[in-house]
């Protein structure tokens, strides 16, 4: 087993990996950009080294420098977390060349799965169902022919794309020309490659993904599914496991497909096969994420398997040591991603100092966070401040626990998405568990916080505002001595001055 691992990441996932290291008796080496000296992942690490200025391109993405730090510190392996260099095949290759173990699949596997068209071809060959469409890099003429064949609606996608960029939905024939043109120019601009492919657009799709674990000895198992259909602009907001209404048969079928996909590319480590599931129960391979996912924790909650530890063990050359029959689903788990975003203001990032931080606790609650009271959320990186995971014996218990935990969670100083999560967790469609990826657009106005409407809370807020104003005035008076000056805007300063009688202000 490794004695020391460098974590080429920051925030909650760096903390997550450090925790796994510490439980395994492995020393954890953190890296930090100039704004992250005081970050939680540094504070939890055994060693920490600066890696450059705040912009990621000059710090957390500096491959050579990071490998150099690892070698200098004597770290035998690097865990990339997610994001940054996690799915960069060149980084994996570099690590290998330099004699440092990359905790993840081989570089060529990442490249194969990273290219959507190649991935589709590979999966099709392995017998994994894919969304009807092309796997070719198409000319406009070929594209038109394919659309004719598959039938509308279709999705035009950039071969090199991801994260919703270079994607174009075409519902009507007259939109085809424009769709091709725009998708190509976006693809060119975003990825420097205007290759396109076309897929059947799946109506009312649900996003179901299967977690897989594989070692270097041909052992490969799946840890069942996660449902990630609650998305805002293609970004996951809330995930749950198991998925809603997934029958044991469908689960087994999707699990087999995911394992087949992983085996087809000789996968090693933890990975996720994303599928679209339509209303009829048909599922289609979407893509494979060759890293630990943000939402891996809900799978850990229902299976008890520590996925990050498994990644480390496998990377160290050990056998997986868990067979498919060893794992089963126990209960239900939900994850809410708490972002430093203002849900009242188009989810704009809300950086700043976290003045008060009181995470929830108690039974069935897990918090994976990269912050603490007094920490600063900087605008340089991903605005996720914490993942809140609840587990229950049943889905309804995990939902009730999530509501309870959200209510307990206090973050002051920055705006967070907590109020938005609370509204989702009270929405009848969510509670029924019958939603698809259109949920937020169709039922939450695309992501708008409903304005609080009257009620007891409103009354209390009005009165508390008066108390807060009174207290502030009193505090100002105390600081200024015994005389109350008005504020800058107040006419008191211009031509008035008041003194309070009695003991309060003396």
């Amino acid at each position, binding site marked *: 087993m490794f004695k020391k691992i460098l974590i080429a990441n920051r925030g909650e996932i760096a903390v997550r990996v450090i925790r796994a290291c510490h439980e395994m008796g492995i020393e954890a080496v953190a890296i930090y950009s100039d704004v992250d000296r005081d970050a939680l992942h540094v504070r939890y690490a055994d060693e920490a080294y600066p890696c450059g200025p705040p912009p990621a391109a000059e710090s957390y993405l500096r491959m050579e420098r990071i490998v150099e730090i690892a070698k200098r510190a004597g770290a035998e392996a690097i865990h990339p977390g997610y994001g940054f260099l996690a799915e960069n095949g060149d980084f994996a290759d570099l690590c290998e060349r330099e004699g440092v173990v990359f905790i993840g699949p081989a570089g060529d596997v990442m490249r194969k799965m990273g290219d959507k068209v190649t991935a589709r071809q590979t999966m099709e060959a392995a017998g994994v169902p894919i969304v009807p469409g092309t796997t070719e890099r198409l000319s406009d003429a070929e594209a038109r022919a394919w659309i004719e064949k598959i039938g509308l609606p279709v999705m035009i996608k950039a071969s090199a794309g991801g994260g919703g960029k270079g994607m174009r939905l075409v519902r009507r024939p007259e939109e085809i020309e424009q769709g091709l043109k725009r998708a190509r120019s976006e693809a060119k601009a975003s990825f420097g490659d205007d290759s396109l492919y076309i897929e059947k657009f799946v109506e009312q799709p649900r996003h179901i993904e299967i977690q897989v674990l594989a070692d270097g000895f041909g052992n490969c198992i799946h840890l069942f599914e996660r449902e990630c259909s609650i998305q805002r602009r293609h970004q996951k907001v809330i995930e749950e496991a198991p998925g809603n209404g997934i029958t044991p048969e469908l689960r087994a079928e999707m699990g087999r497909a995911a394992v087949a996909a992983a085996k087809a590319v000789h996968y090693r480590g933890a990975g996720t096969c994303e599928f679209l599931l339509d209303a009829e129960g048909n599922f289609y391979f979407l893509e494979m994420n060759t890293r630990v996912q943000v939402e891996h924790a809900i799978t850990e909650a229902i299976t008890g398997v520590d996925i990050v530890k498994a990644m480390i063990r496998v990377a160290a050359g050990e056998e997986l040591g868990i067979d498919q029959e060893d794992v089963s689903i126990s209960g239900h788990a939900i994850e809410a991603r708490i972002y430093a975003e203002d849900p*009242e203001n188009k989810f704009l990032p809300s950086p700043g100092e976290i*003045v*008060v931080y*009181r995470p929830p606790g108690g039974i069935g609650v897990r918090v994976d966070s990269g912050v603490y009271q007094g920490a600063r959320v900087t605008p340089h990186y991903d605005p996720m401040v914490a993942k809140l995971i609840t587990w229950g014996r049943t889905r309804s218990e995990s939902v009730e626990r999530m509501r309870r935990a*959200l*209510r307990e969670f*206090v973050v*002051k100083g920055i705006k967070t998405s*907590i*109020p938005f999560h*609370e*509204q989702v967790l009270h929405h009848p469609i969510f509670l029924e568990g019958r939603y698809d990826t259109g949920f937020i657009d169709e039922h939450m106005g695309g992501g708008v*916080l409903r*304005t*609080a409407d009257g*009620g*007891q*809370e*409103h*009354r*209390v*807020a*009005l*009165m*508390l*505002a*008066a*108390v*807060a*104003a*009174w207290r*502030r*005035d009193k505090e100002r008076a105390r600081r200024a001595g015994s005389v*109350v000056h*008005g*504020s*800058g*805007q*107040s*006419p*008191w300063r*211009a*031509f*008035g*001055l*008041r*003194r*309070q*009688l*009695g003991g*309060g202000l003396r």
Partner: protein
Amino acid sequence: MIYQVSDRKTKETHRVELQEVSEGVYRLTLEGRTVEMNVAKSGRTIYSVIEEGRQFEAVVDEQGAHGFDILIRGRLFHLEAVDERSLLLTQQAKATASGPQAVEAEMPGKVVKVHCSVGDEVEEGQGVVVLEAMKMENEIFAPISGRIAELSVREGETVETGALLFVVAPPEEGSS
């Protein structure tokens, strides 16, 4: 004290009467209903408010001069709370922007001090009358520089809202 609390979104305004009963305990009247509210001291932490037994945790963030964003049980309110006397004086200040300046009592009170006599030259901001109202001594200053043209109150006198206190005439008027 009376605060005007308005919602920055709906623009609705409410009147909240506030009286401190003891440390952290307030008697508050809103829309004719008077309640006692126990507000735990909270420094850098979170408010705990108990209103007739009901307990609420509230996160209060100051926004600008008078604004308070208040989050209670997942509901966020954007409020402005202004001391009604400050508000009244603002209105008064606007109303007396030019010419001879008449200064009126903005609320009932007792005149505890008169600093000047008629004909005295005063500077803008110089104290003229001290009015005791709502347990506070309010020193009423000259709104402009000039001469005391009229002085309508004596020490010890009680005045009603709107009662004329004094008039300051600007220098040009005095010399014409």
